[in-house]
């Protein structure tokens, strides 16, 4: 019998508290990130039942979805947003949970903050009431998004009732060429397997092209695993992981660090382990990617054209394509590089880390934002912003005509004041091009940070190779 296990199996097996007869497991949760939008009802539930937070020491809170990205010294204009942010502060104070407030330089998008602080560690289970929690899988942490009932369950018990995912592996072979980024890889993967291709699965990412990514790049890939339907995305931890985490405020120190690294080195899929599904791609088939429709699976290469629904044989898919093109205001056959934009958004839990900001800045340097384009850079955390400013990147953006903002989720989901108007079109480094995602009637093209910066400069979607 083959006893070989995958990385996901190892993480799962090491966190089972109890197993029911039907296979449902009570799974221990090592880390819980809490934000203002999906937690207030959970804290109310605790109060109603007179329950406590079992492990406030394993819980970290930060407001991100709703926060203004402009002047933080002014009070929040939006009364509802203010109530939600105030509620988070009160709930954290009442239940003894550490919170990075809006004035704290550590504040930022929870999926940027967790790794940055060393709160995210290999071998842990980590949850948050946000589907992009898969991000933390870049560190070999079994991380996944949950709903508010589950947030309450974790607060009260530090566990969750779960059924195990199937094992899936996505391998991208070949050495990563210049100009192809983590964003292009994950968009191409989603395009290949579809937005429901990973439903019920935990995806492990493998192969030279994926393994060669930096930690920031791996986070971008894992972040969008959910856009392929999978709750969990994983990279086996390696020297890059340890290097990234060493010395972070919440990382283990001294002898505990050494012991942790020894353990983390064991966290990898056995060579003979069998996956339920394997997808193998070669990096040579992947070009810079851009979305044309209203689902992250609607991708083409930047040198491609808007596809023609008439060529789709599946009726349901054809109907969806037609609906998408009508929403996007696009005609079949239009070259992607002919598509004019109003807005460029560089930010979100997918692409707001220092490497992303640097990549965008390197395109912007010495150039100007095209007339009529609003261009935003929203760093993922106060610390990312600080590093960028130390490197002078803020000046590059500001000189080019970009707005340089405070950290938050911002235009990724348009809960704060940053949003597209009806019919406005964005080149966006975020993760979802759903109808209305960036504002009612807004149109989103998902791209990498360098491509968003290039689109801002040219005023239309553009291949990086075609920049003057």
């Amino acid at each position, binding site marked *: 019998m083959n006893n070989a296990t995958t990385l996901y199996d190892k993480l799962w097996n090491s966190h089972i508290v109890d197993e029911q007869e039907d296979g449902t497991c009570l799974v221990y949760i090592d880390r819980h990130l809490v934000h203002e939008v999906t937690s207030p009802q959970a804290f109310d539930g605790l109060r109603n039942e007179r329950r406590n937070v079992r492990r406030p020491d394993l819980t970290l809170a930060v407001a991100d979805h709703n926060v203004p990205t402009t002047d933080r010294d002014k009070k929040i204009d939006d009364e509802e947003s203010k109530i*939600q942010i105030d509620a988070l502060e009160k709930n954290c104070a009442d239940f003894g949970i550490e919170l990075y407030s809006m004035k704290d330089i550590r504040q930022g998008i929870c999926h940027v903050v967790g790794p940055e602080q060393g709160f995210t560690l290999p071998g842990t289970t980590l949850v948050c009431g946000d589907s992009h929690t898969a991000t933390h899988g870049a560190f070999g942490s079994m991380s996944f998004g949950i709903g*508010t009932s589950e947030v309450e369950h974790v607060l009260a018990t530090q566990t969750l009732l779960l059924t195990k995912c199937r094992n899936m592996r996505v391998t991208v072979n070949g050495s990563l060429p210049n100009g192809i980024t983590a964003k292009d890889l994950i968009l191409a993967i989603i395009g290949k397997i579809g937005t429901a291709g990973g439903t019920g699965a935990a995806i492990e990412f493998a192969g030279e092209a994926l393994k060669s990514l930096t930690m920031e790049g791996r986070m971008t890939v894992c972040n969008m695993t959910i856009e392929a339907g999978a709750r969990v995305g994983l990279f086996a931890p390696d020297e890059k992981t340890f290097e990234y985490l060493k010395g972070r405020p919440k990382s283990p120190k001294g002898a505990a660090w050494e012991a942790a690294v020894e353990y983390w080195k064991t966290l990898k899929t056995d060579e003979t382990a069998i996956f339920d599904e394997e997808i193998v791609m070669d990096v040579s088939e992947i070009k810079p990617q851009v979305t044309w429709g209203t689902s992250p699976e609607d991708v083409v290469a930047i040198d491609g054209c808007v596809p023609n629904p008439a060529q789709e044989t599946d009726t349901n898919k054809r109907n*969806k394509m037609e609906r998408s093109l009508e929403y996007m205001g696009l005609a079949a056959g239009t070259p992607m590089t002919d598509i004019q934009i109003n807005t460029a958004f560089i930010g979100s839990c997918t692409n707001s880390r220092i490497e992303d900001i640097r990549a965008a800045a390197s395109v912007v340097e010495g150039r100007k934002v095209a007339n009529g384009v609003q261009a935003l850079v929203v760093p993922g955390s106060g610390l990312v912003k600080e590093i960028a400013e130390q490197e002078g990147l803020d000046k590059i953006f500001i000189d080019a005509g970009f707005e340089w903002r405070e950290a938050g989720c911002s235009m990724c989901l348009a809960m704060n004041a940053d949003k597209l108007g009806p019919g406005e079109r964005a080149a966006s480094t975020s993760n979802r091009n759903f109808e209305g995602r960036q504002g009612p009637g807004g149109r989103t093209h998902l791209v990498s940070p360098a491509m968003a910066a290039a689109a801002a400069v040219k005023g239309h979607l553009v291949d990086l190779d075609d920049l003057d």
Partner: protein
Amino acid sequence: MDKFNTLTSVAAPLPLINVDTDMIIPARFLKTIKRTGLGADLFSTLRFQEDGSEREDFVLNKPAFRNSEILIAGKNFGCGSSREHAPWALLDFGIKCVIAPSFADIFYNNSSKNGILLIKLPQEQIDKLMKDAELGANATMTVNLEAQEITGPDGDVIKFEVDAFKKHCLMNGLDDIGLTMEKSDKIAAFEASQKVKIT
């Protein structure tokens, strides 16, 4: 959480694939600290014009379907964001059961924790139910969770599968936090054993 046993209602057909949770309840309506009241904004962009008036052609605005408690949809229903506001909005509107070829994982969990029954069926059976649903006011369906059966307007019976534990919780309206807290000794024992590995 209300107990779910049988449900008889007109079913609303929504023949769209990949209905995402931003479509079910856009992010701008998530600025609430309550679970209730979200039904008013369910499918907001599909239901309402920019001036706030109803779109007559949207299924839940048609007289026959305004009180539907069952929704029939295309594959991968509930994809995207983990917002539990999506099942809260459905429930607040009055939808207690969604039938589709497949559902996104997080939405599936969130719904069952709020007493909404999600039923997965093969595409051919969905196509048939979608046609039945289009008959409108004179075509009620009955969903029987205990028997795991849907009885269509023509009396045809479709069997469905459901996770045994979820069925138990739905039928009894169980709060699983209470159940888990009964295992607090096991949780404490796990914590004690784990500290050697990760702190």
